[in-house]
């Protein structure tokens, strides 16, 4: 059975600001990150859909202690966003001073761009993540 939406294709699409997910034909759930089967009903009968990249912030943190090799990025803010289509996705937040991120962020509407993490020796290649900014 073929894996419908691999990380490779998801990654390439995200580099063009396109967020791909999988819509389940059995129960209608939209799944992202991509999986073999639907996260709700476990059916593999899903089709690739393009998501809006818009949503609301559910939670966040600003990281001050980075992993080896990424020290130059700190401090940075990670957010968990609930996309309008339903699923939650992890990304980074720009447009703010990371050290000033507070609970006020929760509930704010955001729109999506992208940022490529070039990878390190443990990575098997570069990896793109959503980069969120406030919706105007």
């Amino acid at each position: 059975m073929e894996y419908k939406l691999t990380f490779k294709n998801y990654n390439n699409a995200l580099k063009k600001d396109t967020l791909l997910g999988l819509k389940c034909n059995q129960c209608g759930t939209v799944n992202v990150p991509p999986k073999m089967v639907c996260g709700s009903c476990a059916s593999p009968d899903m089709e690739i859909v393009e998501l809006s990249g818009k949503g609301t912030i559910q939670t966040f943190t600003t990281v001050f202690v980075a992993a080896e090799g990424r020290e130059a990025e700190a401090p940075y803010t990670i957010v968990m966003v609930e996309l309008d289509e339903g699923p939650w996705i992890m990304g980074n937040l720009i447009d703010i001073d990371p050290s000033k991120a507070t609970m006020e962020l929760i509930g704010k509407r955001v729109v999506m761009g992208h940022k490529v993490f070039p990878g390190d020796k443990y990575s098997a290649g570069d990896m793109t993540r959503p980069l969120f900014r406030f919706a105007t």
Partner: protein
Amino acid sequence: MRKVAIVGIGETKFSGAQDKTGVELFAEASMDALNESNLKPKDIQALYVGNVLGDFSEGQGMVQSFAAENIGAFNVPASRFEGACASATMAIRDAFIWVASGFYDIVLAGGVERAASMGTPLATRTFAMFSDSRYEYPCGITFPAVFAMLTHLYARQYDIPLPRLKEQMAVTSVQSYKYGLLNPKAHLQKEVTVDMVLKGFTVCSPLQLHDCCPFSDGAAVVVLASEEVAKKLTNKPVYLTGVGQSSSGPLSNQKDFLPRLKAREISAKQAYDMAGIKPEDVDIAEIHDCFSIANLIAAEGLGFFEFGKSGEAWEKGGADIGGKVAINLSGGLKSKGHPIGATGAGQVYEIVKQLRGEVEPGRQAPNPKIGLTDTLGGDGGTLCNLILQRGW
């Protein structure tokens, strides 16, 4: 299924970076466990070893085979378990099932880790591997960042102002450190006050230094035997009466449940049902306080306190000796330490000591009969629970 007992235990001191190898640490703990059991290495039929990052910390894979040979358990089946911080508990649960099923009579289970010897930058990188490497790590997720996000979510979910929640979290850290001071095996022995917690530097907002457990080196090992064999070896067998384990995917896929961790509730229920007990029957618990918020989430997920209320319970002494259940009398992950592949076995070591009444007076629970251990790996990716009861 047969009854299975712990007949001997061993544990090294948990510490910062030190020079003994993983095999050496595991061997020391193993020989102590065997000597306590009145057994010889040749009596061991199999090894179950938790070790998460030996490949990174010392370039050593397959530590379990080298350990088996090293301690004289020549040519026995030796398996390695990896469930991040839940690894040793997974190993013990698995070992229990093999003995309960009748396949083996006497086995060795435990874990070893040299997380401190890796140094903070590499430890931070490798611990981030327990999150999703493709869909979470690119964002710069680190292990503390996972729980930092859960903290903000918890504050919002239960409508607790963040400064108030942070005070409650700090109280749990202070309690862990209080008991760690009395535990000679503890890594971080110091007196910590709520004020110190709230003034420490911020690791990931809102988690500060003393909200976080250290990276530690250490090993802990137990010997498991069938009831029939156990009765010949000791008059104080501790029976494993319940086990549970569950798994989860990345944090974002758990959205319908967060800040609760569904995997823990499933795992704990398995253990409780198997043991035929309820949360209120537990006298002492070693739970996964990798971060202060994790203490609150764990205690609630295990059914000790109502969701959103465990902070208040801790403040009122509900999680202490004399309270509803005495939590982390070892000092917990925060103070006793967190050598991740060994931690779960360290929790069992503590519960067995407590049940036997062999612990330092200031941290000995009065006559406990039922204990529970709780370990979590990654973003709630692996949860494992054990229930232990006195066999005398």
